[in-house]
């Protein structure tokens, strides 16, 4: 049950080469800089680009091999473009129903009312696309794609052309989509915060080559991978909500059996919560400190260290149960702590952001 692909796109000065097997569940992010070939790969998967010699199979069904090619309109997929690209001659309702009407009745898993409710489109149905804001348009485009009841949803930087406010408007819908609809999503992005918030699986693409792929945390904290060498090096921890109201406008999470306090987060106990912790927000101590403003103190074990971005700093990878935490400290601190692999320490976490 996966998506297998093998494409080589030769444009002379640029060659995209990707042979991948991706999980057909959850959100898989194709991450890389602009021009790295992510969109081209997505277009190959959709069949919008027919690359000769390509191979593509989804859940055991071959979509492209040799001369066999299933045209896009016969593939059970949805595609959300970077610009919403709504049909200007149709109302919002007309846009939503365009694909829906073209899907056989027995294959319709989603219906207009539920998608309209999921995406909060009730008040927009009678409007024309040119009367909508950027965020509203993208929500309609998303609903339009979902109403074809796709078995695979492809999204090409759906937030890239939106301002910060519109992004925040759409992101919760994308999270609901991921959590409630059980459609595998392939999400192209060059924005790491979107990837941290949405992705379960990450494929790193650079200059047409796949550098690595794996779980989100492994990609963020991998020793040889590019993220640990950036200023905003961070980890994404998978936690569970223990108490939504822990007093003082805080909520208590549990990560690998240890408590972690965050700003109040609504939800039910036991619910999965992903948090992002930047390496620069994590300090280290030999003993759990008393009398400090820092609330979160986690018992960790040193995995390894590597040079930081400046000569005075080190990046330390720490094991927190089965997960990995990053800490950026000065070389002097490391010497004073006697830092070495296998050492048990306490990580002082200053800021925890929701993933």
């Amino acid at each position, binding site marked *: 049950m996966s998506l297998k692909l093998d494409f080589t796109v030769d444009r002379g000065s640029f060659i995209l080469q990707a042979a991948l097997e991706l999980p057909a569940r959850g959100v898989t992010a194709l991450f890389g800089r602009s021009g790295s070939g992510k969109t081209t790969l997505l277009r190959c998967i959709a069949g919008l680009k027919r690359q000769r010699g390509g191979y593509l199979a989804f859940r055991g069904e071959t979509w492209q091999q040799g001369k066999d090619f299933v045209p*896009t309109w016969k593939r059970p997929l949805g595609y959300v473009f970077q610009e919403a690209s709504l*049909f200007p001659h149709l109302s919002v309702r007309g846009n939503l129903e365009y694909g829906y009407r073209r899907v056989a009745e027995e294959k319709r898993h989603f219906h207009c009312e539920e998608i309209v409710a999921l995406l909060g489109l009730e008040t927009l149905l009678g409007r024309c696309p040119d009367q909508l804001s950027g965020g509203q348009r993208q929500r309609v485009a998303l609903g339009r794609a979902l109403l074809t009841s796709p078995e695979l949803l492809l999204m090409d930087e759906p937030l890239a052309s939106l301002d910060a406010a519109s992004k925040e408007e759409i992101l919760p819908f994308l999270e609901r989509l991921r959590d409630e609809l059980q459609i595998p999503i392939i999400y192209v992005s060059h924005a790491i915060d979107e990837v941290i918030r949405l992705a379960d699986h990450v494929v790193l693409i650079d200059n047409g080559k796949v550098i690595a792929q794996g779980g989100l945390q492994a990609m963020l904290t991998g020793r040889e991978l590019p993220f640990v060498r950036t200023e905003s090096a961070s980890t994404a921890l998978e936690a569970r909500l223990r108490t939504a109201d822990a007093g003082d406008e805080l909520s208590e999470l549990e990560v690998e059996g240890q408590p972690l306090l965050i700003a109040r987060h609504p939800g039910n106990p036991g619910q999965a919560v992903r948090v992002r912790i930047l390496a620069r927000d994590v300090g280290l101590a030999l003993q759990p400190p008393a009398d400090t403003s820092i609330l979160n103190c986690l018992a960790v074990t040193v995995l390894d260290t590597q040079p930081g971005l400046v000569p005075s700093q080190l990046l330390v990878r720490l094991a927190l149960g089965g997960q990995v935490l990053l800490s950026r400290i000065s070389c002097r601190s490391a010497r004073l702590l006697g830092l070495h692999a296998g050492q048990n320490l306490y990580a002082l976490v200053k800021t925890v952001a929701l993933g």
Partner: protein
Amino acid sequence: MFGLTAADLTAYWITLKLATVGTVVLVVLATPLAWWLARTKWKGRIVVETLVALPLVMPPTVMGFYLLVLFGPHGWVGGLLESLGYRHLAFTFTGIVIGSMFFSLPFVVHPLQNAFASTGIRVSEVANTLRASPWDRFVSVILPLSRRGFLSAFVLSFAHTFGEFGMILMIGGSIPGATKVASIAIYDHVETMNYGAAHSLSLLLVASSFILLMLIFALNRRYKVAGMA
């Protein structure tokens, strides 16, 4: 009626029929050509584009002359038809319909080609991801978004044929009831110093052109086509 004879009305009727039939057939036939020109990346398309635009600069009599030779009993087309047991096309209504179609070709292809080009590939791709087959995409997305282009094509082709003179005289001669159109009838009236009849028929052409254009502008305003959102 207003000093118009039965012969004048017949000429007017033939003009209307010629412009209508010629325009409809031409738009249908030119649509795939315009689509192809708007989409192809083939470098040789400049040759096709030049051929399409040629009637813009050719004197109608020159075009009419060549078509007459081609359509006549000894021309390639006419001769072929004769050998297949059909009649050649010189001095026939069919002949002037085909001639007027060549003559109006650029007036139909250009607006359609522009409309198709400005519709862009993206909408068609979007429809492709929404389970629409190629033909379905053309009918449900491209056609409605190219409405203005089709409207322009119809108006320009109709108006252009409505007033054509030289080429129709060449191919069709001036056979009353078959190829004698209003513009030729007016010329004949002037030739015979019958200014009154010329006035009446001219006025009828002006009035019908005015009404037609006004109808079209009203339609155009009603179906405003927005840009891609």
